[in-house]
Each structure stands twice: as structure tokens, then as C-alpha cells.
């Protein structure tokens, strides 16, 4: 299947222009992580070393990559439908795979920037303000490598699920609520790692990354297939 970079770029460019004009979207994306990491940041300054586990880093930080894009993705299609801006786009030659990919990239890129920025802040906080011994205990190479590798894959998975939900919803609020649920599978895996049910090794990290990559590919196909022009303009499928 050949894709038109120009058409994908057109939607991507348009989405970024809208982000710039509507600061609320990026502001919300940037602030949600604060809610996620505030508790562990305080814990780090007050809790004894023995109670801290390095895997906890994963659950909090991958949570950012999972939750932030899911919420935005859940709005992406149903929001345009309600504003009446989706139908004119659907009348153009753009293919649904291109439109879904462009929408996903427009959410993924700022999500990654925000996620990595928060990781940097988190690590800096730990290095500067945590009790002695804590940085060495929780900021460890394997976890950081897994974190950096998993972040785009986890964010993409949340986006595909969020877009799939958004294509089938007629109500923005319901889509946002269900979109938050899209991050649950990722949070579950992160929790298994955090509580040492899964021990992070290089092999496991690469294996999980491969699985996530496969899920992302399938997710793109499924969300594209669900992006049905007739359903989107009429609300029903004959």
C-alpha cells in the first residue's frame, strides 16, 4: 500500500497549527504527568531507602506515556465529527490509513516530547533532592533503557486504542472516559514489573518491545479499518 506523505503531512501540519492556537491541549498534556509523579517525588524525599523499588519508576513514568496520548486520541475523531470538520476531509482523496496515521503522529510526537521531558525532570529531581543512596537505587540502567524504549511503543498503543474508541463514539465525554481506560493494559504490565512479578532484563526488554511493536502494527490496521467513512458521516453502518 502506497502512502502519500503529502496528505499525511497536510493533516499533521494542520494538527500542529491547531495545537499552537489552542494552548489548552498542550497545557493539559503537560500537566497530567504532574498528577502522576507528584506522590513518588514527595516519597523520594521522605521515604526510607529500603521501601523504594526501582521498578516503581516504570509504573509512574510509563503511565505518562500511556495516559496522556490516550486522552487526546479519544477526542481526535469524535471531536472533529462534532465540530463538523471531519466530513470535508473525508470528501478528499485521503485514505483512511493516511488520516489515522497523521492523527496518531500528531498525538505521538508531543506526547513523546512531554514524556521524555518529565523523565528528565524526574531523574534530575532524584539526583538533586532524594536522600543519599536513593538515586543509585531507583535510577538504574536497565530500567532507564526499558523506559526509553517502551515509551513510544506504549504511547502508540494507547493512541490506536484511543482512536478506535473515538471512531465509534458520538459523545466526547464518553470517548474521553473510555480513552483513559485505553491505558490500562500498559499500566498493568508496568505494575507487574514494579512489583517484581516480571524482572527486567535486556532480553525481556527487547522481547516486550517486539510484542509492543507487533501490537502497534495490528493497532494501526484495526483502527484504520474501524475508520469507516459511512459510519463517521451517518453514525450508522448499513
Amino acid at each position, binding site marked *: 500500500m502506497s502512502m502519500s506523505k503529502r496528505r499525511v503531512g497536510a493533516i499533521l501540519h494542520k494538527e500542529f497549527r491547531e495545537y499552537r492556537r489552542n494552548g489548552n491541549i498542550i497545557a493539559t498534556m503537560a500537566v497530567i504527568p504532574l498528577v502522576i509523579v507528584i506522590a513518588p517525588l514527595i516519597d523520594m524525599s521522605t521515604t526510607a531507602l529500603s521501601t523504594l523499588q526501582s521498578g516503581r519508576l516504570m509504573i509512574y513514568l510509563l503511565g505518562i506515556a500511556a495516559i496522556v496520548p490516550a486522552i487526546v486520541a479519544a477526542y481526535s475523531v469524535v471531536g472533529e465529527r462534532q465540530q463538523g470538520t471531519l466530513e470535508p476531509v473525508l470528501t478528499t482523496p485521503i485514505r483512511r490509513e493516511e488520516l489515522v496515521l497523521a492523527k496518531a503522529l500528531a498525538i505521538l510526537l508531543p506526547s513523546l516530547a512531554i514524556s521524555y521531558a518529565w523523565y528528565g525532570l524526574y531523574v534530575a529531581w532524584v539526583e538533586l533532592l532524594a536522600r543519599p543512596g536513593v538515586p543509585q537505587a531507583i535510577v538504574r540502567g536497565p530500567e532507564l533503557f526499558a523506559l526509553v524504549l517502551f515509551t513510544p511503543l506504549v504511547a502508540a498503543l494507547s493512541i490506536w486504542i484511543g482512536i478506535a474508541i473515538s471512531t465509534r463514539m458520538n459523545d466526547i465525554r464518553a470517548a474521553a472516559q473510555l480513552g483513559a481506560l485505553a491505558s490500562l493494559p500498559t499500566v498493568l504490565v508496568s505494575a507487574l514489573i514494579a512489583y517484581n512479578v516480571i524482572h527486567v532484563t535486556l532480553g525481556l526488554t527487547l522481547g516486550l518491545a517486539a510484542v509492543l511493536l507487533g501490537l502497534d502494527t495490528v493497532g494501526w490496521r484495526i483502527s484504520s479499518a474501524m475508520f469507516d467513512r*459511512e459510519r463517521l458521516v451517518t453514525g450508522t453502518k*448499513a
Partner: protein
Amino acid sequence: MSEDAPALSVDHLTKRFGERAAFDGVSLEVDRGEVFGFLGPNGAGKTTMVRTLGTLIAPTSGSAWVAGYPLAPENGEEIRRRISIMPESPGLYVRLSVAENLECFAELYEVADSKGRIGRALRAVNLEDRAGDACGRLSKGLRQRVALARALLSEPEVLFLDEPTSGLDPVATRDVHDLIEGLRRAGVTVFLTTHRLEEAERLCDRVAILDTTLRTIGRPNQLREQLFSKTLLIKTVAALADAGRTFAGLPGVEGWHLDGPASYVLDISDSVLAAPAATRALVAAGADVLSISESHHSLEDVYLRLIDEDKGAGPG
């Protein structure tokens, strides 16, 4: 698309949503360069027809050719490349400027020389000086113009305009009408859905009236002649002493009936024969004539008669 091929060819096209038919068994052809009016009451299936021909909705049965391509899922991209649809709601990105909205769509159509095309589209709708304005700050009439500029960007072979003057004030409506006249002069095929009958009468070469099924199709004057017999309306100061004798045997007059105490309607076959003959007969009868005029039925009369017939027939 071949020079001789119609821009649109629809054959027994039907779209059902479950048990409900949006439109049923519609057949029509639209010639290249024609401004074709598609009329019907709310819920008649006009917008669904536009969406179907625009490949947004799949028909339930029947077939169609759009801009030279069979209406089929595998041809969707090619058809959409050759047509343009202006939906009833402009659907503009309100935070983006007029030019930014057009840039996005120029890229989606992958047009060559997008800046030139955008400039031409803006000139066509007289919006060059508003290119930098955010669409959210424009009046409804100006937004319609931007939507029309967007529809012109790809220089489509067939342009679908779905209720383009819906909700516009008279000045904005006149502007849109002028734009459609300009498209006609430029040879663009326009498929115009509307329930503004004076709009269709003014702009369209031919019209079709849809009320789930296609009720009629033709030039507005043909439809008038098909549905209404020609009549002469005669008004006199006082009632004629013997109207039957006065109007009997007049050339071109096929019958008559009273339309008031001193008002008569003559069914005629040819006004050139009937009007002078009736005038002479009235003078000979000593009548004081107030007026003699040929009746004029509007497209609205045609439309209302057909729709009233449908209502009278009831469902099923």
C-alpha cells in the same frame, strides 16, 4: 473523462438504512458543464445522494458513474480526486486562518502550484483581503465563501453544493448565486441541492425533484408545461351575461371555468391564437375588460403539486 460521457450517470440507485429508504431507484444523468438542481423537502434524501455519489456512503443497490468512474469502493480515491463536495455546514477549522484552511486542503488534493491555486480560489470568492483572518471570526456568509473556495481548489470536474445558501441572508445568498453563475460560465458541472425553489429556477439548467423516489426531472419550463395546462385569466367589471356563449368555439381555447364573480379562466392550447380571439369576443359581447393575462406557474407550483401528491398518497 471522455468529452461525450455525462458527468454523472445514475441508474436505479437506492440507499437504505435498515428498513428505511433514504432514496429509492433513482436514475438520472447530468451533462458536463450543466448546473443541475436537486430539489426536495427535508429528509427527501438529497444529502444522502450527494454523500453516496461522493463515495462517502455505499449504495444499497443500483449503479452510478461519477466523473467517468464507476461508483465502487476501489474507485473511491480516484472519484474523490475529480470531484469536490461543499457540505451544508462549512466545517472550517475555526482557529486556522482562511489561507491555512485552504493550504491544508490543497495538500490533501496534492495540487500543483498550491499557492497559485489558493490565490485563484480566493479571488473567485472575493476573499483575497481576508486570507489572514481566522475562520472563527468570519460571518456565516463569509464562511460559506471560504468553503466554496476550498471546494474549488482542486478544480473539480463535478462540484456538489449541498444547500450552499442555507441560513444565509439575502446579500450573502446573492453572492453565492453570483459565484455559481461564474462556475457555469467556467464550464464546471454543478450538482446543487436546495429547497430554495427560486434559487433552482434562477440557476439551474435542469432540475430533479426527489421525495425518496425521483418525482420528476427536466428543465423548469418543461416541468411547468408538463404539470400545468396553459391558461388565460380574464377579469371583467361585471359578470358576463352568457360566458359559455362568449367563449364557445374560440380558436386555441379548449375550455373555461369561473374563478370569481367576474373572473374567468380559459384553458388554452396556444396563447397567440386564444388571447386575441378572446379579446374580440369580449368586446363583441359588450364586456368591460379589466385584464387579460396568461397564467405563469412557477417552479414552486410544480414542486408543491408533486410533494402534495406524495403527501396525499401517504406512506407506502
